[in-house]
């Protein structure tokens, strides 16, 4: 409870300081929206010409796009502390984290909150809702629950990626940009059905970096596409666990990394 109330207090402070630059916030909000609108507009252009992609219609792909977009934007919003952790390490701010009587993971997690990602979330949500109205999905309580768990799990997955990037800062500040392949690149490739990728690509992004579990497998279940587009029923039902598991593993990695922190200027 202490942690929860502390977290909301931190978030409140962050939001307030971001609102101080209101005009910039509004500009930025629309910049976010315009970038992501064009993003989906391009997918729509392709469908306008080609009509379908490996048996998926535009709005089915929109469903995929919306899901992964929401997860990533949420992860960027809440997991910002890990995303920009490199800066903190360079400045030596992590010393401060270590002298406080709170967990390091919790502190870095609650240190930032990027409100302006609301624009991206809104855009992804709109695409998702339109997709819903365009394809007939027989929603049931199970499906709604499954969807919500999937979204949280997907957010956890992306936060986990940020955590890996942040943890590698304990050793080096040079090569963490490789994580962009999985974050930005992940959103890009996750916007299309996985069946279009080659087997080795697919397997890598299912079992090693479980990107497919964020939206593809859940979408197979929700759109009742299991079988026609690959995936086994049990695998698909278990898919939402992957994000939680992934985050858990990265948290262990974080814990181990903290022990290797060398501080600056000894």
């Amino acid at each position, binding site marked *: 409870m202490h942690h929860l109330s502390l977290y909301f207090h931190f978030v409140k402070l962050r939001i307030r300081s971001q609102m101080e630059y209101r005009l910039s916030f509004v500009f930025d909000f629309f910049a976010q929206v315009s970038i992501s609108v064009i993003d989906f507009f391009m997918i729509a252009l392709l469908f306008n010409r080609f009509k379908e992609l490996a048996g998926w219609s535009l709005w089915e792909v929109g469903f995929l796009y919306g899901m992964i977009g929401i997860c990533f934007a949420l992860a960027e919003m809440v997991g910002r502390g890990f995303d920009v952790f490199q800066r903190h390490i360079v400045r030596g701010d992590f*010393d401060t984290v270590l002298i406080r*009587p709170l967990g390091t993971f919790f502190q870095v997690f609650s240190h930032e909150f990027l409100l302006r990602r609301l624009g991206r979330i809104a855009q992804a949500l709109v695409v998702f809702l339109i997709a819903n109205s365009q394809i007939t999905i027989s929603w049931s309580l199970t499906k709604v629950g499954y969807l919500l768990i999937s979204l949280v799990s997907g957010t956890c997955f992306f936060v986990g990626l940020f955590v890996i990037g942040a943890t590698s800062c304990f050793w080096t500040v040079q090569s963490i940009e490789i994580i962009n392949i999985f974050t930005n690149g992940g959103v890009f490739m996750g916007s299309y059905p996985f069946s279009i990728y080659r087997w080795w690509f697919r397997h890598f992004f299912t079992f090693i970096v479980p990107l497919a579990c964020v939206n593809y497998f859940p979408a197979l279940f929700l759109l009742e596409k299991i079988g026609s587009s690959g995936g086994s029923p049990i695998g698909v039902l278990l898919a939402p666990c992957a994000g939680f598991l992934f985050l858990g593993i990265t948290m262990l990695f974080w814990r181990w990394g903290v022990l290797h922190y*060398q501080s600056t200027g000894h």
Partner: protein
Amino acid sequence: MIEVDNLSKTFKVYHHRKGFFGSFANLFSRKHRIVQAVDSISFTVERGEIVGYLGPNGAGKSTTIKMLTGILVPTSGSVTVNGYIPHRQRKENAKHIGVVFGQRSHLWFDLPVRESFELLQRIYRIPEVQYRYNVEMFDELLSIGDFFQTPVRQLSLGQRMRADIAAALLHDPDVLFLDEPTIGLDVVAKARIRQFIQKINAERQVTVVLTTHDLDDVEKLCKRVILIDNARLRFDGELATLRRLLSTERILSVDYAEAYPDVSIPSAHIVYQEGARVQYRFSPEEVSTADLIGAILQKFKIVDISVQEPDIEELIKTVYEDNLTLERKLTEPISPNTQAN
């Protein structure tokens, strides 16, 4: 209160290979050399002590403090603070210590001081009564009320330091670690912070471990000093003992009426001679100053005579600069340059 036993810390410093293929190879394996930052240091600090932890830049002061506060994990040896092992029981330890780094603020940069303090109240779960009492007291002693509503980033260095020290004491820690608390401050601000530390130490029995470059800090605050150099402990004891140890040797400067050919005196060594001016080194334990002067007056005519006690600042400085150990310093003659002042 604080027990440090055989504590060591080594760092790996990576060597970056040059050239295109070199940087490629750096991705997979990197050559490194080991730097010993702290080398088997042991000491204990009792409750209520103020200890000056001194040494030149890069001697390992900050590394030691960082191990005591749980920021760094020791390579070997053991540390306990209040009975906690800082790097293993970091959170527990953190509740009972206060830390101030002169070079860097631990407060929230964009928040007013008041909100930073309120955040700390939440983080350390400080009861409202205790919080109010402390804030009032710190306002009285450090006038933090003058800038309580100001964002930390707008504070002057002196104000920031006052805020930081107050913040470190809000939760009534048993031990306060101060790393260069007066660095860059003017004389008035320094005096104020010293007074405050003294008061807190006297009234609350807060143990204080202080690293500093400013020997005024040491003279005003510390009964006890620990000297380290090159990662190793060189001296640990009362400041008075250090002074006595160092002042076992005194300098007697004599200007004789004329340049005598032989001016040697039993139980004193000539360390410098130029014309009629001679300087002797002697130990007050072997011969009293009065006896020595008496012996000189018996033999020669003098114009002027004076006794110098080597001052601590000078001596510690030479210890650092020459990289000499204290023991060696004590057995070697003092160079003429140092006695000139």
